[in-house]
């Protein structure tokens, strides 16, 4: 380490106030710095640990020495070695009276211990004491420790002291006390819920730093519950205004910006408060517009504030002027050379695009540049933007790009994310089945093991059900193209397991369906798969089941089945497999192949993966058998409740098995075997001969039937086995469900269409814009332009696909719904805007802040009344006519230049001041009043109430409309999703060997065995 040669510098530094270190420590750091390898470093550190262990327990260590040991311990821990032997010494050090040692002790314990550590209990008492200390630095050190070390249980121990510190004369302490409370709120909101008013109170602290500190907890509180802080909008706006107008002391400036961090926090808060609230937003327009104009865009921090403005504008009720200003800033960001600003620009674009979809077109080339930028962060952000702006017209380009990128990266976390986005977009906007299948193949091929298993199930479902249009030829085309593409891919080495499962399933189900490929060809491929991936049991299981299906379909079609030799050997292998599941499957296959066509058609109907399976739980088909047995003299079945205690044992075992078949795991405690227990298990109609004997395999007597009359005793046994009955009625395809369900579904579909039409007005005007992409920049690389055109243009295609897209979105994932809703909301809100203008008076102009009706509205239901009480009489209602400066000017109080402060104050404050409080204003700081609002003018109140009533009505109407939009959609959406769960269920159980007997499909085999 070259710099170590300048060791003299350290020696000089070592003598700086109180931070002196010994030669040993310097040597340690030096030798670690010079270590050539990690192993060498570890050796040095371990030696150091040994030394410290020895030294630290020596008696009578000088305090200064002890301090150094502790610092060395901290250092050792930072390097990743355990220093827990010294924790107790650090704890002890916090008890010391000297400030240096105390602070070192606190530093060490905050770094060493977590809030649940056993040693904390030894510190709490010290913290309590230190919080009451006269020395504010001790208090600060204790507060620092409080943040890190106090957990939910110990909060009450220090809470009173911390609350008391909110009134500490030093602003540094007040600030830290607020932040400590904020921390408590994070850890356990309930513990400080009664103290939340303190945050509001501190908002009017006369130190701007303390006020700034309260914004952090308020931001969190508002994020959780917006409505109860609406009354603060005006206060926040007035604070922001004063900050932006440089009324804070110069010391709060940062790079010539007035308190930018406070501005940023305030803008974040306003964004929350104004979101979806027109009235609140109107208060903000002026100040946000001002900041847009004033902000210095040459400094980093200025751009940070501008970016926050964009976020705010995108979040609050839209205002055209502000949107324009935001778009200008975004343009500036995107054109800048700085990657940071480009990043912010792309992010801002993603936020604004929801409100004004045409904005992206202006920047299309910049966006494409970002997409091709070597900076990974920027690239990802751009993909996020593209994801947000995907439509059916550009889905192909975007998803192709995403997949290319996905292939190029190694980061599994991001790969997973981008893969799931590709899948989502493909499901929502796929222009054709062919494309969809190919895209999914690519995703699976390159990220197969990373995608969620649900995606695979979804894909299988989609291939099985088709795209929803009642067009059988399209569905079978989809299947054939899937089969073809899979047969093409299957030869490639090292395919992900999940993908192979899909391939096997599809080949088994549809491989021979269109007659293009012979059964022997398909089975050959399946055998190859099972062989090539011989250590993946799941794939093998899928392959064997697929083989069984192919053979079954062959037999059912009346063709002669010749099992391939390799298939035969595979089956033989598997019937001796260690996996019972594979064994089971192999035996099943052999059994199926031995059946005749009629039986096969019965147990393995072709293309029936979507059929619902009904279970006859009353086992009525056994009645004949029971009757016969009874005639032969067998004992009749005694329902469980009527049996005597002697039988309980066998009875119990029986019960156990049933439960096992439905749960696998029992969560409730075992019952005691006491006499007649009313059992959950309904009396099964068992033959008397089996009744007393605990039969290990329920499959021998629990026979099921595929096409049974709907069992009448449904309600009773529903607990017992697969709960399919409720599911299928609700979610089954229309053809399989009861007539009631199907009508409700069709009506909901109609509703979707109906809404589509009403919503038209909103959607239509956005569409033509899509085609308006500028053709000015002719000199740009034609390649890029082509890309731009395909990303941003192509309106005609959109129209064509619009309806299917909607449908797909509905049947797609929940995200689709969200998107739909967002776009509808946007449409509605723009509509809303228009109506608003006609009904109510025009919204106030940007610059017109002081509309009396609005200001007084806040006073109307003002929870600040309490606050006023707290703030005693110094709260001054300003006169109405004071216009823009009517909010009392706290910031001039801050500024500490009484001459100007008093002058401006005088005008607005004096008229309302009582004698006592006027004194206070002119003297030192009073509890200042950024929170005051207009006077309670009665008539303006009434006016306001009227306006609000109208607005309310309007809102009601729109929310009703929105409801109508949302509801059918939701219903529609849930359908495929829960169906998928239902649908995959039988297939999944097919795979899980443990409860294979749940699957009635396989169970049809049982009778032959008896």
């Amino acid at each position, binding site marked *: 380490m070259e710099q170590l040669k300048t060791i003299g510098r350290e020696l000089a530094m070592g003598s700086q106030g109180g931070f002196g270190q010994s030669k040993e420590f310097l040597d340690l750091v030096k030798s670690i710095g010079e270590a050539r390898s990690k192993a060498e470093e570890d050796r040095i550190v371990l030696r150091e640990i040994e030394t410290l262990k020895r030294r630290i327990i020596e008696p009578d260590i*000088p305090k200064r020495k002890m301090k150094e040991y502790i610092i060395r311990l901290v250092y050792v821990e930072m390097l990743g070695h355990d220093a827990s032997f010294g924790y107790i010494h650090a704890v002890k050090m916090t008890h010391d009276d000297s*400030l240096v040692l105390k602070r070192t002790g606190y530093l060490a314990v905050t770094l060493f211990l977590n809030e649940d550590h056993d040693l904390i209990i030894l510190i709490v008492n010290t913290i309590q004491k230190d919080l009451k200390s006269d020395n504010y630095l001790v208090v600060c050190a204790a507060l620092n420790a409080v943040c890190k070390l106090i957990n939910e249980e110990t909060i009450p121990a220090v809470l009173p002291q911390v609350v008391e510190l909110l009134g500490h004369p030093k602003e540094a302490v007040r600030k830290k006390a607020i932040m400590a409370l904020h921390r408590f709120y994070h850890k356990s909101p309930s513990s400080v819920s009664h103290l939340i008013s303190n945050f509001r109170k501190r908002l009017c602290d006369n130190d701007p730093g303390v006020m700034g500190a309260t914004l952090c907890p308020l931001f969190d509180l508002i994020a959780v519950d917006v409505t109860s802080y609406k009354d603060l909008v005006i206060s926040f706006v007035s604070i922001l205004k004063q900050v932006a107008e440089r009324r804070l002391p110069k010391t709060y400036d940062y790079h010539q910006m007035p308190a930018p*961090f406070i501005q940023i926090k305030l803008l974040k808060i306003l964004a929350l408060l104004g979101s979806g609230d027109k009235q609140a937003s109107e208060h903000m327009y002026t100040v946000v517009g001002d900041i847009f104009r004033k902000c210095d865009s040459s400094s980093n921090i200025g751009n940070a504030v501008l*970016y926050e403005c964009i976020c705010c504008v995108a979040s609050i009720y839209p205002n055209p002027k502000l949107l324009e200003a935001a778009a200008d800033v975004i343009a500036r960001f995107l054109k800048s050379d700085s990657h940071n600003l480009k990043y912010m620009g792309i992010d801002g674009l993603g936020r604004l695009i929801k409100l004004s979809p045409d904005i992206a077109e202006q920047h299309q080339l910049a966006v494409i540049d970002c997409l091709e930028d*070597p900076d990974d962060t920027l690239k990802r952000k751009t993909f996020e933007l593209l994801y947000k702006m995907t439509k059916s017209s550009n889905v192909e380009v975007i998803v192709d790009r995403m997949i290319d990128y996905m292939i190029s990266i190694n980061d599994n976390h991001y790969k997973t994310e981008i893969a799931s986005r590709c899948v989502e977009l493909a499901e929502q906007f796929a222009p054709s089945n062919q494309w969809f299948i190919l895209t999914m193949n690519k995703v699976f091929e390159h990220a197969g093991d990373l995608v969620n298993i649900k995606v695979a199930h979804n894909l299988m479902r989609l291939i099985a059900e088709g795209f929803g249009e009642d067009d059988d030829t399209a569905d079978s085309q989809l299947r054939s193209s899937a089969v073809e593409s899979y047969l093409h891919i299957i030869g490639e080495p090292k395919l992900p397991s999940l993908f192979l499962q899909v391939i096997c399933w599809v080949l088994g189900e549809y491989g021979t369906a269109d007659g293009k490929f012979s059964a022997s060809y398909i089975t050959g491929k399946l055998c190859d798969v099972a062989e090539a991936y011989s250590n993946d049991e799941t794939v093998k299981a899928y392959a064997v089941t697929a083989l069984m299906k192919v053979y079954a379909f062959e037999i059912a079609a009346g063709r002669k089945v010749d099992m391939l030799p390799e298939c035969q050997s595979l089956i033989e292998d598997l019937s001796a497999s260690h996996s019972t599941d594979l064994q089971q499957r192999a035996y099943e296959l052999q059994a199926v192949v031995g059946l005749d066509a009629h039986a096969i058609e019965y147990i393995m109907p072709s293309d029936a993966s979507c059929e619902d399976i009904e279970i006859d739980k009353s086992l009525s088909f056994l009645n004949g058998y029971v009757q016969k047995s009874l005639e032969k003299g067998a004992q009749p079945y005694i329902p469980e409740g009527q049996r005597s205690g002697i039988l309980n044992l066998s009875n119990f075992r029986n019960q156990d098995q049933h439960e096992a078949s439905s749960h696998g795991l029992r969560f409730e405690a075992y019952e005691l075997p006491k006499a007649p227990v009313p059992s959950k298990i309904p009396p099964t109609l068992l033959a008397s001969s089996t009744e007393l004997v605990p039969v290990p395999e329920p499959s021998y007597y629990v026979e099921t039937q595929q096409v049974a009359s709907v069992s009448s005793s449904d309600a009773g046994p529903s607990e017992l086995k697969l709960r399919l009955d409720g599911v299928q009625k609700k979610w089954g395809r229309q053809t399989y469900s009861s007539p009631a369900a199907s009508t409700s579904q069709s009506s909901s579909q109609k509703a979707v269409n109906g809404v589509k039409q009403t919503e038209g007005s909103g959607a239509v005007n956005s569409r033509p814009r899509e085609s308006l992409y500028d053709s000015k920049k002719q000199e740009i690389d034609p390649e890029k332009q082509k890309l731009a055109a395909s990303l941003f243009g192509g309106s005609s295609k959109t129209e064509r696909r619009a309806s299917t897209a909607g449908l797909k979105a509905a049947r797609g994932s929940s995200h689709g719904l969200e998107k739909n809703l967002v776009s509808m909301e946007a449409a509605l809100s723009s509509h809303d805007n228009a109506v608003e203008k006609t009904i109510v008076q025009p919204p106030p102009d940007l610059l017109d802040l002081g509309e009396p009706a609005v200001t007084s509205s806040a006073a109307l239901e003002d929870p600040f009344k309490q606050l006023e009480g707290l703030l005693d009489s110094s709260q001054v209602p300003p006169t109405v006519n004071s216009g823009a400066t009517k909010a009392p000017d706290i910031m001039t109080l801050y500024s500490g230049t009484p001459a100007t402060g008093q002058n401006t104050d005088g005008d607005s404050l004096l008229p309302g001041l009582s004698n006592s409080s006027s004194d206070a204003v002119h003297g030192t700081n009073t509890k200042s009043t950024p929170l005051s609002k207009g006077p309670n003018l009665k008539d303006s109140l009434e006016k306001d109430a009227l306006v609000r009533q109208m607005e309310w009505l309007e809102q009601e109407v729109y929310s009703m409309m929105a409801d109508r939009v949302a509801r059918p959609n939701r219903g529609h959406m849930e359908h495929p999703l829960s169906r998928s769960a239902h649908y995959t269920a039988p297939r999944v159980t097919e795979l899980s060997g443990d409860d294979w007997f749940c699957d009635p499909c396989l169970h049809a085999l049982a009778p032959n065995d008896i």
Partner: protein
Amino acid sequence: MIKAAIVMNTQGKPRLAKFYEFLSLEKQQELIRSVFGVLCSRAENVSNFLDADSFFGPDSRLVYKHFATLYFVFVFDSSENELAMLDLIQVFVETLDKCFRNVCELDIVFNYSKLHTVLDEIIFGGQVLETSSAEVMKAVEEISKQEAASNSIALVSKTVSGWRR
């Protein structure tokens, strides 16, 4: 909220690591390593932001700045502004610079506890406490002064260069 502040050198050695939510020692080391792995592979003229979801869990961003032989890294969530965090790093470094007159890696190595003192005056319990380096300096100097006063032994060591004892 800010989740972590890390200073490490260009060889990946941590110089300061402060996590505002408790993490086990192993996890801390793992995070430092993985952050370094990403940082050292980034080119010069790229943005200072990183998506930190993969190491710090959902909703984490990372801002870093490269000074001479050191990386300064702040990790935070969506309630902070990336550009502002970049400036906070600037504040931190500026303060250190004032503190040590032309700060270099060595100052940071040898004044480990002072580094923490400075950081604690800027970030408190995961929230931004102070952004003016002059104010931070004032607070730090006050602490130094009082510490010196409170500890007579320290006073002795100050005059007779303490390391020799």
